[in-house]
């Protein structure tokens, strides 16, 4: 990127890499995308007049899928750490693991949506169906983009395109992946737990868990 400056090939005013800063700006914007979706869902919470609503949520199954997605973040961390150390084959293994865990999460979501359809909940059914399915579907689309990205890195690694000196490529994919995970934590807490149990019981259970832990 010689055109940027004569002084040095990688100098930037803030010291942050351009692409990394771009990803942070994008994620900041994405917060507002999800914020709007979640806010709409909350505004309409409990206002559906017919059809299945919050009670349809299957907390145990979703807890498992949430765990799977969280583990994918762990795999992502290990992938980046390996690439940064120059261990490309180990990095490749963890990239594939991240993508597979992400695919597992998407599998759970497809199962969930199919189950809901069988029980009579589609985006047309009621307010809950519209807001819940568009919101989680939008999140699923984000995960899917991440999976395509991870497999792209995986296959590019066989052509020597994933290296220690450009581990930033993996780091930026990781930023995106972790962000999508974090959004899911918010959705799981605010939409699933509070949706199924209500605010008071969720908070109560949370406090109970924390005090049991120590």
């Amino acid at each position, binding site marked *: *990127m*010689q*055109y*940027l*400056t*004569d*002084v040095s090939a990688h100098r*930037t*005013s*803030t010291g*942050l890499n*351009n692409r990394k*800063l*771009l990803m942070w*700006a*994008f994620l*900041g*914007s*994405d917060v*507002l*995308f999800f*914020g*709007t*979706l979640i806010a*709409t869902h909350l*505004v*309409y919470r409990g*206002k*559906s*007049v*017919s059809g299945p609503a919050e009670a349809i949520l299957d907390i145990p199954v979703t807890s498992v899928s949430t765990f799977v997605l969280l583990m994918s973040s762990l795999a992502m961390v290990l992938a980046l750490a390996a690439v940064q150390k120059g261990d490309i084959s180990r990095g490749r293994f963890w990239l594939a693991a991240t993508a597979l865990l992400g695919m597992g999460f998407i599998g759970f979501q497809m199962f969930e949506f199919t189950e809901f359809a069988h029980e009579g909940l589609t*985006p*047309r059914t*009621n*307010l809950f*169906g*519209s*807001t819940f399915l*568009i919101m989680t579907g939008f999140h699923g689309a984000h995960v899917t983009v991440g999976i395509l990205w991870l497999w*792209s890195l995986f296959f590019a690694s066989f052509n020597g395109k994933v290296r220690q000196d450009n581990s930033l490529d993996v780091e930026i994919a990781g930023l995106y992946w972790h962000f999508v995970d974090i959004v899911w934590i918010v959705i799981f807490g605010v939409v699933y737990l509070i949706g199924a149990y209500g605010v008071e019981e969720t908070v109560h259970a949370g406090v109970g868990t924390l005090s049991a832990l120590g």
Partner: protein
Amino acid sequence: MVANIGTLPRPLAPTGVWAWMTTVDHKKIGVLYGVTAFFFFLLGGLEALFMRVQLATADADIISAGTFNSLFTMHGTTMVFMVVMPAGAAFFNFLIPLMIGARDVAFPRLNALSYWVFLFGALLMNFSFFMNAFPDIGWFGYAPLTAIEYTTSNATDYWVLGLQIMGIGTLAAGFNFVVTILNLRAPGMTLMRMPVFVWMTLIVAFLIIFAFPPLTIALTFLLFDRLFDTNFFLNIGAGSDPLLWQHLFWVFGHPEVYILILPAMGIVSDVLPTFSRKPLFGYSTIVFAGVVIAFLGFGVWAHHMLTTGLGPWANAAFAGTTMTIAIPTGVKIFNWLATLYGGQLHFKTPMLFALGFISMFMLGGLSGMMHAVVPVDTQHQDTYFVVAHFHYVLFGGSIFGLMAGLYYWFPKMTGRMMSESLGKLHFWLMLIGFNLTFMPMHILGVLGMPRRIYTYSEGQGWEALNLLVSFGAVIIALSILVLIINIARSVRQGEIAGDNPWDAATLEWSIPSPPPHYNFAVVPTVRSQYPLWDEEANAVAPPPLPAHEEPQMPSPSYWPIVIAFAITMVGGGLLVWQAHAIAGLTIISSMGLLGMRGIYGWVFEPLEVEEAVHVHH
């Protein structure tokens, strides 16, 4: 060795249509934005003139009610999204790298993508005219009018998809300029040494990345409601609340107002010092006032909804935040006046437009404050008083500011001066025409004339004022004609400008006009807010240029236009899908694949081709 990843050879010719279509040079992209915005300015102006012909006399029967609905919808949508925003983009594309001492933006190909997506989205929306489906729902498209039950033609779908596609380009530009301004500043160009225009662009870029997502989601909801029968805004039986649309739209829509006005404020803040021959008064307060306006801009959206029954507490809160915005705005105006005070004023055309901006914008701001008073707003809601108000801020404000910028930087962009005499004629015609058009609207509004009516009956005391308004509109049109003549003549025969015709102080004036494609032969080192003035005052000779080779710049790429085309045609495919499912799905899937191919082509294409095949200019 040509690093040819794509299916076609990399387009490297420096001129010709293909060169413009594949350019990644921020200056060329700026020119493309400017020319496109001007074209839509004429189109949106024509739509306004048609409306004024119809409204010039009572009980006129020149334009049907339905056509009139389309005219005010597309006039508003065009002027906001296809004129003022891209005109601002034209300036910040052309100028930001020059002002911060950079050779291009941080992501040159993303910049090209922004432009092409914007252009194709705008064309898609306007294409509806030829499909007999010109949008007719008002520029803010309130639910439940947008429901499929009430607007059965797919005019609304064109509107939704056009806005959605243009929004992608806007968001990409927002990300690009945040990174460019934060990261690509020349050595010594600290944040508080940046020209105010750069600051305002940075603020606008942040506004874009935080304000556009709610619009994108709202449009997605609306599209799903229309295409897939969901319940977000429309299905009253399901308990939907149409007011949700208003909340989501104005959470975007009010920051959008500042997206439209802040670039003009930046332009004026750079024009005034040059023609007052003294530094801007209160630079840091002007900058922080801009930041405060942007923050507050997210907390005032419901003042567009004071008559929807939100209740006294919400109304009072939003009236309060709205009045608060007057403080930073007033700070700016007093700083501009203090900049003029004691200066050696040179009344060149850019200066005239800047002064026109301050006075006209202030009038618009004052009528805006009137709307913050809830009982007054209740009277003004949906009358011509509101139309008068927002034209004073968007025309008297944004357009006057942009005109100041056009006359000011035209010499830098083309290397030639614009005619001063024609410029002054343009200014005075526009100022007079503008006030004849929009000042009487205040009175019409108070007299009770509702906005958006296609005709009115005699005897309500509205005839004379409406005729005056239409007469004023003709004068504005004349002033634009003068501008066109001025541009057409000056581009070819204007006086040669030289590097710094205005004796201005900022970095863009230190390089030739028009600038070479690499902008700066040597990246400058900046030591003050007004580098060119300070060097003169201290009689510091510029350092001798070290020997250098022509810097290697990013090579042209056809992937941006390919991806933009694919994105737009996916939207087009959705429109086809409504009539022919198979044909629509074929278009959507093939264009989706083309877009994927484009993304991979883009990612694996090197930014610069090897020096050996680089075409020298």
